[in-house]
């Protein structure tokens, strides 16, 4: 295992070219960019990722990255604005983030209308502006799970409910959750999501939890309802059970499933 290297801007451009030009046809990921001094350099402080590591879900990914950073003394503040690091991590495990399908092609997620970054799931989108850069982690396959896990690593379930999906899937529910610091940092709310939608017996989310046409779905919980409730209540200081007991009737369906 060698010290992890990160793409420079030239390397990120080459990675983007690969996504644009040959990834869909099942082309081999350009992992060699991470060994080429013209396209990459060692990251400091040094940390190490196992190339053979497999991730069954986003929680495993978030936990592994957190552990590797912790072992190297790397704090969140040192990495959350580093676009090239997060693009490099996705490239390093590209075949897991964008696997080759049975027909030999890959499904490459793209945001065609985004003028800043057409591939924000693989290369974090930079916030437009001058000066210090910040990243939008909500759509990124590695940064999003890392942020959610890091905020919840000391919690009982370590946000398993929102990190239970495969690392190459990214539903609206994850995006709505990962993009809101008021959600991922509120353990009471994360526990509430677990109380409502987690199927304990099968260790997975209940079917239909994110179906937007279904009353009481997760997207409405973390966006509209939360925005409305925070005008009059403080979910940070309320135990999950208390929030649960005071939810409007549209959540009765989910409550009934638990009884």
């Amino acid at each position, binding site marked *: 295992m060698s010290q992890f290297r990160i793409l420079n801007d030239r390397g990120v451009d080459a990675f983007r070219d690969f996504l644009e030009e040959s990834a869909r046809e099942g082309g081999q990921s350009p992992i060699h960019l991470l060994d080429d001094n013209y396209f990459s350099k060692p990251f400091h402080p040094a940390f190490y990722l196992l190339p053979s590591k497999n991730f069954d879900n986003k929680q495993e990914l978030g936990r592994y990255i957190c552990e590797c950073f912790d072992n190297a003394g790397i704090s969140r*503040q040192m990495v959350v604005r580093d676009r090239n690091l997060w693009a490099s991590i996705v490239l390093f495990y590209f075949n897991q983030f964008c696997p080759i399908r049975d027909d030999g092609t890959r499904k490459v997620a793209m945001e065609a209308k985004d003028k800043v970054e057409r591939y924000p799931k693989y290369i974090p989108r930079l916030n437009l*502006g*001058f000066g*210090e850069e910040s990243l939008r982690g909500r759509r990124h396959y590695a940064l999003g799970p890392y942020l959610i896990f890091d905020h919840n690593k000391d919690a009982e379930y370590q946000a398993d409910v929102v990190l239970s999906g495969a690392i190459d899937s990214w539903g609206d529910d994850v995006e709505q959750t990962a993009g809101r610091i008021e959600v991922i940092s509120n353990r009471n709310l994360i526990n509430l999501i677990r109380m409502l939608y987690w199927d304990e017996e099968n260790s997975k989310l209940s079917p239909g939890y994110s179906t937007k046409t279904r009353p009481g779905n997760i997207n409405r919980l973390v966006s509209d309802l939360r925005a409305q409730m925070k005008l009059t209540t403080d979910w940070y*200081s309320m135990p999950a059970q208390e929030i649960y007991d005071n939810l409007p009737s549209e959540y009765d369906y989910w409550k009934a499933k638990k009884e």
Partner: protein
Amino acid sequence: MTTRNFNYTGRLFIPQECIDGRLSKMSSGPPALEIDFDWTFAPYLDAISDDAHVYVDADVDMSFMRFEYGNFGNPVAPEDVLLSELDSWTSANFKIRIVKDGTLLAASRKHTVTLALPDTKSRRSLIIPEYRDLGERPWMLEVHDIMEYPKLVFNEKWWEKAAHSGYPLQEDEETMATIMPSVLEGMLNWLLIHQKHDAHQWHQDQSWKGSWIRFAKSLADTDAPQLDKSGEYESMEIVSNWITSVVANYSESKGLTSRLVSMIPGGE
């Protein structure tokens, strides 16, 4: 169209005058967020029960910390007010919430403090100064779409030397006269060209973005260029020329070059 905000919630507003917030840094590591409260500036807050809880919620980008300041009747800072979990250690946004049994009784709007300008008292800024290691670059404008306020970032070496000399940069007329036209130009470029919103769209905006545009329009000789129905400007040259004229009028209104010239010893 004028936008009005109605508050049907019964939640009380905690005005800025009640909050004295500042960042302080003792050594390397995270700064401390220190806040004092004086509720007497808002007598209507007397309706709040003394045993309600006071919380200070601080955030930067995708990081968040909550500090418990005890009871409304006698708020006391917690032992640890270091912003160790925030993603920036030079600035922070914070909001005050007063809560009883899960019910939000009162809240402030979001405030921003930086190490360069830590005091929140009576400030209504278009931009806030900050300092940081910029290598050999003297200063830069920092602005993007999710900021509470744009920042004028100075090189920390320059900032600290000036502060120790007794002439802090933000009060240094010569420095600010030199920098501010470029800051105004950068802001208008970002708002009108990078963000591709015309001045008409920004005019109603209640944040600093609208404030900058209203400020620019107050300086302009001509109407601001507008986007057409397809969302394009008739000509980027017209937009650039409008920005250039606004910056020229700003400089004229402040007599910037004349002031710079007059500061040179022996000059007339």
